[in-house]
């Protein structure tokens, strides 16, 4: 048996630093939201070989910005993609202006439009609100579910405490990927898009899997072996389940890494968010949620 809970303070310290760093990064760099949340236009183009020279000529960012000056598009962000492509972002425009912008680009160099997205400001704000509601509701539902599922174990730790500790672990699991994405957003212009939000919510559902399996084992060991030292029961349960935790996380990570490296650009950051979140989830179930139960129990015993 490995004495997991003996080193609780070390885990708390590590997670504490990670969480504080994430929050700091979120405050300083904020999140770089995609246009589906902020409103605006997003245009993805690829320059194609010109009929005259047969060569692909991708105009420089400044050249593009200058050519589009007359449309009064606000701040134009041009981001080159691959060898021949570019992503342009600017304020919301109507279809006629969109066509004119495309025509102006074609004057610079022959171009093919890959995608165009325009989101009105009200739609973006609405989506933001809905996302926040969805995340909060998920957290609430999961906490309640766990408190309910563990209602039969009230000793030595009350069942609602299982719910609360898994909630703390979940907040941990969602803050760390958010922190990473705020850094990525600041330094590499990576945006929070809808797929990433979907990934974050999935992390909530998935990382609680691990916590449930471990708590379930604690529940079973308490019911079967009776009351012993609670910390020992937890250690024993963790030892029994750790192999399974590693296997489960490994299989999810395998497919997500495959998606990250071979899945193309659209799902790249979706899989990255899941890779970070799932790893953090596995860590937090073993090293945060369970030790917290023990610490909480010790603390309340000392009080009485």
């Amino acid at each position: 048996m490995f004495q997991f809970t003996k080193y609780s303070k070390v885990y708390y310290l590590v997670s504490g630093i990670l969480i504080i760093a994430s929050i700091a990064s979120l405050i300083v760099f904020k999140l770089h939201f995609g246009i589906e949340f902020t409103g605006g236009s997003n245009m993805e183009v690829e320059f194609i070989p010109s009929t005259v020279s047969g060569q692909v000529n991708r105009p420089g960012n400044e050249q593009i910005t200058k050519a589009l000056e007359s449309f009064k598009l606000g701040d134009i962000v041009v981001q080159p993609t691959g060898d021949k492509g570019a992503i342009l972002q600017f304020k919301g425009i109507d279809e006629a202006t969109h066509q004119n912008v495309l025509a102006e680009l074609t004057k610079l160099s022959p171009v093919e439009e890959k995608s165009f997205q325009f989101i009105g400001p009200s739609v973006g704000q609405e989506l933001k609100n809905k996302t926040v509601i969805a995340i909060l509701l998920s957290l609430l539902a999961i906490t309640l579910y766990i408190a309910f599922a563990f209602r039969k174990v009230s000793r030595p730790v009350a069942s609602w405490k299982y719910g609360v500790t898994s909630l703390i672990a979940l907040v941990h699991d969602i803050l760390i990927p958010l922190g990473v994405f705020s850094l990525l957003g600041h330094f590499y212009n990576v945006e929070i898009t809808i797929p990433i939000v979907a990934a974050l919510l999935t992390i909530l559902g998935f990382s609680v899997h691990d916590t449930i399996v471990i708590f379930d084992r604690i529940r079973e060991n308490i019911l079967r072996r009776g009351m012993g030292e609670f910390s020992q029961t937890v250690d024993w349960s963790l030892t029994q389940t750790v192999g399974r935790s590693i296997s489960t996380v490994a299989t999810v990570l395998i497919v997500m890494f495959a998606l990250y490296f071979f899945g193309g650009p659209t799902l790249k950051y979706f899989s990255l968010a899941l890779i970070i979140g799932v790893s953090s989830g596995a860590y937090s179930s073993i090293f945060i949620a369970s030790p917290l139960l023990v610490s909480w129990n010790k603390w309340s015993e000392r009080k009485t």
Partner: protein
Amino acid sequence: MQQKYWIFIGVVILALLAGTFVYPNYVNQGIDGLNGKFGWHVPHFWSKPYTLGLDLQGGVNLIYQADLIKTDDKGLAMQGLRDVIERRVNMFGVSEPVVQIQGSDRLIVSLPGVKDVKQAIEMIGQTPYLEFDEQKTEAESKPILDKIKEIQDAESKKEDYTKIKDWQLALQNPYFKPTELTGKYLSKAAVVFDQTTFKPQIQLTFNSEGSKLFEQITARNIQKPLAIYLDGASIIDTTGDGKIDVSDVYAPIIQDKITGGTAVITGNISAQTANTITSRLNSGALPVKIGDPISQETVGPTLGQASLQKSLWAGLLGLLAVVIFMIIFYRLPGLLASIALLVYVAITLSIFKLVPVTLTLAGIGGFILSIGMAVDANILIFARMKEEIKQGKAVDVAIKEGFGRAWPSIRDSNLNSLIVCAILFIFSTSFIKGFALTLSLGIVVSLFSAIFITRILLQVFIGKWSEKVKWIL
């Protein structure tokens, strides 16, 4: 034969059917080969393509906000608007357009594969135009009909009809010409029922100016038809061929001069048709403005194809890696779980085709994720089985205990995921809905494959013999 073998045979048949449905090419090639060799006429296996979302097949997705401030019955007005827009995009010739109402005043228009987005937006944004047309005289009709015939002759000889003098004349409606009466003179239309026969009728109420116009028109057209057009096409499909084109004309006969501005259209129509006509008349009478889209998403056809290929390839690699992982760490049970995983993939993809689930990139992401998660239940069970075997239990007992003991964890964790999926589904845009749907489908099917199928495989393939070679467990 024992029951477990029958179930096993059932699972094998299910797996083969699902697999063939997902990828019928090889089976069909085989059928072709046999047909050629023996002169049989075995038909091909039923094939049904996936329904691809806009982001995968290209097209445009538009969101409109209707201006309903002046409208009393908002629900009805939105229904009418949806109907009118749907008519227009159908006539635009887009394959499988989707027009749906979102919330109380939003309209989502999806046009897969559309080329000219600008024209589509212009067409959708137009105010509905309702007109009442009277019959042309023979002298007016004849030159148009002649011209149409002339052009048809030219076309059958494959000649360029644009060389014919005044060919544009043939584009005119040969039978009807517009009157001054249009939608703006109509106050409202309603379905009423005949007091004695209880048949549905359509009641038209015109405003004061419209009443005068209507009186003049009816006076000069007694016993003649009055055709009703919306957006330049017949208000309903009268030929019953499912589409509205030049051969459709909806033209009630004017029985008498009508004064007072209220008219009733009688005749043998179903209540449903009466409702359709009424709502279209109303959308022409009280046009709801939708203006420009508040959100637009256009995806070129090549982008979607490329990302589809890439993500499918990634999914296949991931699947292979999971299989290798399972076999290395869990040996024979791992191999059986891998077989169950392949059955899982086949069944899930079959459901995607059957329902059909509209596949988006996010949906495929969700599906690939579910491949990694599907074996979770198996890992739990196997880990439990190993423990029981270590404690010296017989293999068949260990299998049973493994499933029984692991079940509460499996149930709790998967229910939790389903709860999150439900929240995602309710509180989000269509993009995430696709993701939540594929993920929750994946969870449900994976429970079936990881528990039911794997258990049958274990019962069939692992017997007393394995006691001697415990290392494979």
